[in-house]
């Protein structure tokens, strides 16, 4: 039976990971994700989880140790943020190329510099094209559910890819929410023990991580791309199974008052819920607005996006990182290229908000919706804007 408990979300994430019975956890402290490994080490110390917790000397070693453990056939987990993710960066694309189902939770935080410990998505956006499944949670319940789903998705025979689950630093990691925790039996029924396809052990000799010459490299990259694209089918199936078992629904793109709406705000992570409050306010003023929550970032849900925006007049993409000198925000450029070939497509504008923990209250979303309403009549000249810059 699941149990409803009020808890800090980072601790809840650790509890959810522990329910998945990882064999090896390797992690290094960095704000704001630190409470995840701290609490996991508590759980190990209390004897509630039979795992080896490796207190590595860096994030590079954290992900390397996860590679080794996963390569040996163990279920492996790590967690990090920002600079820690970049410190791992050398290893990140190797994990997916080696098809190792490592799960990583990222407590999203702005990249330095200037150094800043607060939330935005510049960390994960810098690690976009690396062959990992990448998803966003919007609240504590989603963190718990998606942490458990992540292991099942990663280890599925048709997938065998690492997964990163993103939760906003502070806005999620440090917030206390009431959440439903599935019990161990329910999780065990949902998530079977990990059975590796291959593992380094003398009983079954393999060479893992070999060198590929140009004659084979294209093909390996093609496989990486295909496997990641095809994983969407498995992800959606696993989400359906979750809904049947636990009653909570997960989709690549979720909608809020979006049906028939003229203006759609497309957001990821915790900002979605603030956007929904703003939409409620605007609906009272008879403004036809709705919200799209982008949950699945890689593989990108192209068809779902096209379907979701087909009747809208304006789509405002809310980014929380900048592609400097580029097209605006990374989510924006993805959405725009997904819609470019459509015969009928909405006006697409880009607001970059909430950088380095800058608060984005409901009133900012209201301002953004009002601006979008004007864009229906006249397409704005500027494609993107860093919203709320003081002195501009």
């Amino acid at each position, binding site marked *: 039976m699941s149990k409803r408990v009020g808890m800090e979300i980072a601790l809840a994430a650790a509890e959810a990971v522990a329910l998945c019975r990882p064999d090896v956890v390797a992690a290094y402290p960095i704000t704001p994700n630190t409470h995840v490994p701290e609490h996991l080490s508590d759980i190990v110390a209390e004897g509630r989880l*039979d795992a080896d917790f490796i207190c590595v000397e860096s994030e590079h*070693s954290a992900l*390397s140790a996860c590679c080794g453990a996963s390569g040996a056939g*163990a279920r492996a987990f790590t967690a990090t943020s920002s600079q820690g993710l970049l410190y791992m960066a050398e*290893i990140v694309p190797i994990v997916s190329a080696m098809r190792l189902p490592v799960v990583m939770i990222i407590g999203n935080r702005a990249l330095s510099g200037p150094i800043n410990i607060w939330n935005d998505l510049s960390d994960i956006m810098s690690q976009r094209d690396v062959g990992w499944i990448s998803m966003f949670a919007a609240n504590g319940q989603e963190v718990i559910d998606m942490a458990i789903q992540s292991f099942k998705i990663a280890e599925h025979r048709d997938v065998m890819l690492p997964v990163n689950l993103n939760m906003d630093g502070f806005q999620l990691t440090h917030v206390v929410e009431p959440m439903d925790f599935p019990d161990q039996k329910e999780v065990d029924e949902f998530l079977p023990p990990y059975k590796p396809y291959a593992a380094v052990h*003398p009983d079954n000799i393999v060479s*893992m*991580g070999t*060198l590929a010459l140009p004659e084979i490299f294209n093909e390996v990259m093609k496989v990486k791309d295909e496997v990641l694209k095809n994983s969407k089918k498995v992800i959606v199936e696993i989400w359906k199974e979750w809904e049947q078992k636990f009653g909570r629904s997960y989709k690549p793109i979720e909608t809020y008052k979006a049906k028939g709406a003229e203006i759609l705000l497309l957001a990821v992570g915790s900002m979605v819920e603030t956007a929904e409050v703003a939409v409620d306010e605007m609906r009272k003023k008879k403004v036809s607005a709705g919200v799209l929550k982008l949950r699945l970032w890689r593989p990108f849900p192209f068809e779902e996006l096209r379907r979701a925006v087909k009747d809208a007049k304006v789509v405002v993409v809310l980014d929380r990182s900048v592609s400097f000198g580029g097209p605006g925000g990374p989510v924006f450029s993805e959405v725009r290229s997904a819609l470019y070939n459509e015969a009928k497509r909405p006006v697409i504008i880009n607001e970059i908000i909430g950088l380095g923990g800058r608060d984005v209250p409901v009133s900012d979303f209201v301002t953004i919706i009002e601006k979008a309403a004007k864009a229906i009549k006249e397409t704005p000249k500027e494609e993107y804007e860093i919203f709320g810059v003081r002195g501009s």
Partner: protein
Amino acid sequence: MNIVENFDLYAPRLVDKEEYFSAGHRACQGCGEALAIRMMCKALGSDTVIVNATGCMEVVSSFYPTTAWNLPWIHVAFPNAASVGAGVEAGLKVLRRKGKIADRDVKTVCIGGGGGTFDIGLQALSGAMERGHDMLYACFDNEAYMNTGIQRSGATPFGASTTTNPAGRASSGKGEWKKNITEIIAAHGVQYAATACHSYPLDFMNKVKKAREVKGPTFIHCLAVCPTGWRIPSEACIKMGRLASETGIFPLYEVENGKYRMTIKPEKLRPVGDYLKAQGRFRHLTPEDIERIQEKVYQEYNKLQDKVNNLHAWSELK
């Protein structure tokens, strides 16, 4: 000296006939590193997982879809053999405890080149040694970044000309002394650390066997002669390894629970010129340079001898 009577009759019986690092790899002719790895694997036996850092040995042995490895083998990147090894060791330990794999000892053995160990991999290595993983880390030191074309590293000896500190009118090669990696790792308090060389096969293999028996982190620093990078004929590989020991440039010793022991003890050190003058990478050295190296070699050798004479095993200390 480690001379056994009827050696030719005897030696083959002491060595595992199984080939774990098989012929067909693409190492250069006369490669000391490939030879050393072949010997190491024979000493380790089949219950071994090899974790390889990027470098010559990984590159020559694993052209997909072929492999020279007849042992379970994993390679991830250049700086992280020790941390990948830490994960392998932890994974195998937990899976064994949970009854998911066979209940027997499988040794995790990390291998890296000189650069991958002394420089870019040192942090991961230090972390793994400090955490006490049950693993052997073996460094195969050919004294430069050979895989990328003979660049200077922390393992390059004083005076050697490499492609990033070439000798020239204004330079006489590397101007700094080689890092003492064995002392650095011994200072982590590991139970077993040793130097070795493929030119002394039994000494090397005995050390590998000793390290394998220890439950905890151990370290072997194996000098691996690189004819290509050292600018010597390929058939000089074994001889050059011998000269490194006979001149005292690379003394062969072990540190076991704090006790230092010379395992190969030349009766009288040969002059360093015998070693240096035989190699193209030292060709530019002046008699003064050689004299300077000679002094340093004596000094280092005496320091080591002093440890051998005076340091006790930890258990004997009062």
